[in-house]
């Protein structure tokens, strides 16, 4: 089924302050979701209390990581939540992209790819620390957002190889997101069994990009 136009118009404007305030909270929800604490974003409100305590404890990482260190995972979770945030559809953190990436590197990646991923993450961290002028992980949300915005624009303006680490991590987050049920069917459009071929139809009839 296609979503109605009304549902689709509820988008907040990009990077609005309201969104930023959400970032860390959403990040924590995502992390919790990925370790099985919460499975739907719908019941967010119920978790406000535990979120607060989690934040207090600064213990925002699952302890069953198989590839990333806690710090790497936290960085990745922030990246994920900023690159593909919750809007009128859940974002990449909500669908557990960091956890999927942890599993991917533990179960799928060769030693070489594992090393490359570690290098990519560490390069991203260094760049972001520099742009933030402080430890990116503990920087205020606003600074995190502006640093990442800057890193992203650098990565896509200069030479490609310069920013391969960031670009490859970003691509991977996108792959997991748009291949997820939320990404494919709520954010984009997907039909497992289309059943027919219509070669040329007005774009509005589909309304979004086909996920596959």
């Amino acid at each position, binding site marked *: 089924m296609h979503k109605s136009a009304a549902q689709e118009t509820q*988008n*907040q*404007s*990009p*990077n609005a302050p309201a*969104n930023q305030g959400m970032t860390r909270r959403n990040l924590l929800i995502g992390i919790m979701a990925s370790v099985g604490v919460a499975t739907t974003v719908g019941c967010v409100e119920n978790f406000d209390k535990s979120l607060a305590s989690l934040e207090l404890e600064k213990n925002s990482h699952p302890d069953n990581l198989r590839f990333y260190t806690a710090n790497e995972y936290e960085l990745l979770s922030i990246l994920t939540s*900023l*690159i*593909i*945030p919750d*809007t009128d*559809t859940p*974002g990449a953190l909500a669908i557990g992209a960091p956890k*999927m990436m942890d*599993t*991917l590197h533990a*179960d*799928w*990646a*060769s030693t*070489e790819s594992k090393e490359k991923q570690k290098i990519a993450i560490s390069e991203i961290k260094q760049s972001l620390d520099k742009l933030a002028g402080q430890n990116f992980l503990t920087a205020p949300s606003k600074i995190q*957002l502006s640093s*990442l915005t800057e890193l*992203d624009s650098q*990565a*896509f*303006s200069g030479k490609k190889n310069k920013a391969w680490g960031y*670009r490859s991590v*970003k691509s991977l*987050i*996108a*792959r997991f997101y*748009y*291949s997820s*049920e939320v990404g*494919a069917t709520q*954010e*984009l459009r*997907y*039909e*497992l*069994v*289309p*059943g*027919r*071929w*219509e*070669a*040329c*139809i*007005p*774009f*509005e*009839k*589909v309304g*979004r*990009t*086909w*996920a*596959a």
Partner: protein
Amino acid sequence: MTEYDAIVVGSGMSGGWSAKELAEQGLKVLVLERGGPIEPSKDYADFVTPWERPNLDQIPEDEVKNDYPIQYRAVRYAMRDSTKHFWVKDSEHPYVTPKDKPYDWIRGYHTGGRSLLWGRQSYRLGPQDFEANIKDGHGTDWPIRYDDLKPWYEYVEKFAGIAGSNEGLEQLPDSIFQPPFEMTCVEKEFKKNLEESFPTRKVIHARVAHLTKPTEEQMSLGRGPCQVRNHCNRGCSFGAYFSSNSATLPAALKTGNCTIVNNAIVHSLEYDEVKKRVSGVKVIDAQSKEVKTYTARFVFLNASSIATAMILLQSKSASFPNGLANSSDQVGRNLMDHVSAAAASGEFEGFDDQYYYGRRPGGVYIPRYANITEQDKPYLRGFGYQGGGKRIGWTGNRPGIGEDFKQANRKPGNWQVGLYAFGEVLPNPENRVTLDKTKKDKWGLPLANINCVMGENEKIMMREAQKDAYEMLKAAGAVNINRGPDTELTLSLPGNRIHEMGTARMGRDPKTSVLNEWCQAHDVPNLFITDGACMPSGGCQNPSLTYMALSARAAHHAVKLFKKGEI
């Protein structure tokens, strides 16, 4: 006493047809298949959604490196963790090549062979293809002409089901078609503009072995219309594309005359020096390694070109010390494929408000024009282009973060038309497969030693095809064309187009060919070969439809001889 009337070796594209035709005419048929059985409910992955499998359904990298390095480099697009069982493990099925002459031998060992995995592009050869060898002197003359095969093309197309459009082209004769998958608006625009600029060239619907309007016969086999998912290399629970599994084998089994034995690796054919006939088929059980001989009045080899040549070379006897049916020394020679390298794509503007519904299997095709409607070419023979026009999808490789990024991906990218050439490869006796003198597989069979390279004509042809692709896109209105006319090209490795052919060619003269006009061995009357091995030349069209027609034709001839007691 023979146990069976006929033995068919291999259950793939050609073997399925041989089995069906022989069984339907009342013969007791045994199909020997080296791979295991396929159970759709267990083996097909066509209902797997993108989010149901971990790790994006990718095969672990170390596993790829250890077990599938060759298969994966050639067909990574079709190899997922959920479908890897459709492909051989290179670690288990090695072969030898000279270091500087890599070859891609891409295959799957299971019931149905590569009919389960193919791209389903289905084109007849044209009259020129049967005359090419005699005209330019490469290879030996085909012993048949287009008109000999025409009724058999019709025969197999009716049963298989080919979606396509009647175009009336001499060089690419029309099939019996079910309705084509309509062109996208940009493909229509591309076609119009291109045909205006190049009156000697045509853009037509791809011809694909998909049911768009199934017949009673097709439905009675449990086949249904294509659901437009384009996931075909995961298997199709609807039986909507042609495969041995969906079509020919069910038909053969329905007769009650056909038995399939799996895990039966054919080691060699036994030869009776007195009767001058094949007397038995020696088989190794892939699992128990038990050796067994089956007997029948005649044998069809359908193990695919390279495997068929190996079985012949492996079958040594007093009369045939260099391999069965090999008095011409042509067995294993003239190994052909198609060649690719030329490719380009460009964007089309002005259709942003248009999109499509469904994932169409196949796109458009530009039939061969070189040395057909245009004669000024610095190379022999020619090529066709497969292609298609669709919108670019979402990407993580774009600037922007946050809601901007999400918004940008909600809108599909530009329309893009891509072209991809498939060229003819000239037969060359030096391109050959032999049995390796020392190395053996885990069943004790000698490994294939494949020595094959692309030639000068192929290079020149692809260079010109690249120029043509660029010019056509440009003339048709494309912008941002990704590869220019002078792009440096790397030819596809031999084997990489997965159209291996020629290792036991048909011909008029037993001194220079292995098979006669009925795909029957000149040397051994009760031996028939109707996989790609029999092809004296390859044309530039995807070849499987031709194997089907040749198999059906040969099977009918064999039944005639059988009934007359001649074999």
